[in-house]
């Protein structure tokens, strides 16, 4: 048991160390790398906490996808050092902030260490609720049934985020393809990877989404892999992202929430109310929602990672616009 304790201590120190290093890093670039390192270490901590579902999500979204989008913004910011040092709080203010942070952390620590023992748990209720749905993974059951409204709203948040990011585009770029332009690489390692990895990655992404019914995994984790595999050929310049006015892209992004909402509304007619499933038909309905959501999460995450449109329209579509 002491080996496990030492392991926890090591991980805790490593996470805190990289987090502190992230704040202290001299360049923004180094700070992002520190942040990603913290995230990857955290996903190991989640495994240690017995939350494999969360470990998958943290590794995919918390570390990987967030790190990539921050780094692409860092690549385009050129901060003036004079402006930054003028805006940096004074030494006294920073000391005050440190005091505040330590106080908040201390109070939290006191609260966490004095939680009631034995801890209250919904594990039994969740397990009892997941069996009639035909789902072997209680986390998926909670996401799809008991807290279904959360998941529905979350998928709507993703759609709104895409809308908001697109609306940040400069006026004359509206209708272009999302993301910066990358030079086409006909040969070389990147073009090889962009050709070899997506076929394998798409299979793995669908597998992770599919297995989520009975084992750790699910639409968000699988969808992130699919998004990454979609973006890889864009980065290598081998494929062009679709235009943001393309109705197929928009349908893909909206398909998940729409399906979820329709099934939820149908619950009024065939089951006990909004977002409830008829018991004999629960599993197929959940699978339908999961499939549509995987597609939507993949499309929305790909658009969020790529950012607002920065590419000009291809010549042929410009001509089509003028006509």
């Amino acid at each position, binding site marked *: 048991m002491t080996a496990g304790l030492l392991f926890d201590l090591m991980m805790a120190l490593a996470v805190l160390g990289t987090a502190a290093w992230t704040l202290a890093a001299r360049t923004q670039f180094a700070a992002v790398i520190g942040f990603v390192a913290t995230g990857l270490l955290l996903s190991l901590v989640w495994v240690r906490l017995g939350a494999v579902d969360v470990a998958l999500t943290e590794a995919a979204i918390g570390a990987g996808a967030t790190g990539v989008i921050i780094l692409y913004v860092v690549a385009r910011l050129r901060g003036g050092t004079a402006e930054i040092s003028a805006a940096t709080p004074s030494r006294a203010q920073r000391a005050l902030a440190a005091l505040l942070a330590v106080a908040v952390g201390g109070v939290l620590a006191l609260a966490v260490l004095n939680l009631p023992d034995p801890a209250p748990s919904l594990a039994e209720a969740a397990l009892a609720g997941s069996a009639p749905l035909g789902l072997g993974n*209680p986390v998926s059951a909670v996401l799809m049934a008991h807290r279904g409204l959360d998941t529905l709203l979350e998928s709507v948040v993703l759609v709104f985020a895409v809308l908001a990011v697109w609306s940040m585009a400069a006026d004359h770029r509206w209708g272009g393809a999302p993301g910066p332009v990358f030079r086409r690489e006909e040969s070389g390692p990147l073009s090889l990877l962009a050709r070899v990895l997506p076929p394998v990655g798409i299979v793995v992404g669908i597998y992770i989404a599919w297995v989520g019914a009975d084992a750790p995994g699910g639409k968000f984790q699988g969808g992130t892999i699919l998004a990454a595999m979609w973006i890889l050929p864009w980065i290598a310049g081998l494929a062009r992202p679709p235009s943001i006015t393309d109705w197929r892209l928009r349908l893909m992004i909206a398909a998940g929430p729409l399906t979820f909402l329709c099934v939820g509304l149908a619950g009024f007619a065939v089951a006990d109310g909004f977002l409830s499933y008829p018991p004999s038909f629960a599993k197929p309905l959940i699978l339908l929602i999961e499939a549509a959501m995987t597609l939507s999460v993949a499309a929305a995450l790909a658009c969020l990672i790529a950012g607002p449109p920065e590419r000009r329209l291809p010549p042929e579509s410009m001509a089509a616009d003028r006509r």
Partner: protein
Amino acid sequence: MSGTDILALAACGLVAIGLYGVVAQAEVLRKIIAFNLLGAGVFLLFGVVARRGAAAGLAADPVPQAMVITGLVVAFAATALALVLTLRLHQITGAATVAEDPPSGAAPDPASEP
């Protein structure tokens, strides 16, 4: 002290580090990174609570886990929006902070080139 307690303290430490970063750093981008660290600490607290609620043969209580998964995705969406706003602010005004005094001689908007 159990391993879960150690990780609980690490979560509190992450919250403190993130909070300090959000308050004490000037650059918007670093504030966003620090805010994500703060969020990671809060999520980890949920994980500790889930672990303490292990019952019925499960390694951890599934309800807090599901809430953290929802939270991670929403945090990503919010981060993406914050980053795009930061970038657009920088493109229009040339600023990397949200100080009261905007820098004189704002950079031209690179996105408005023909």
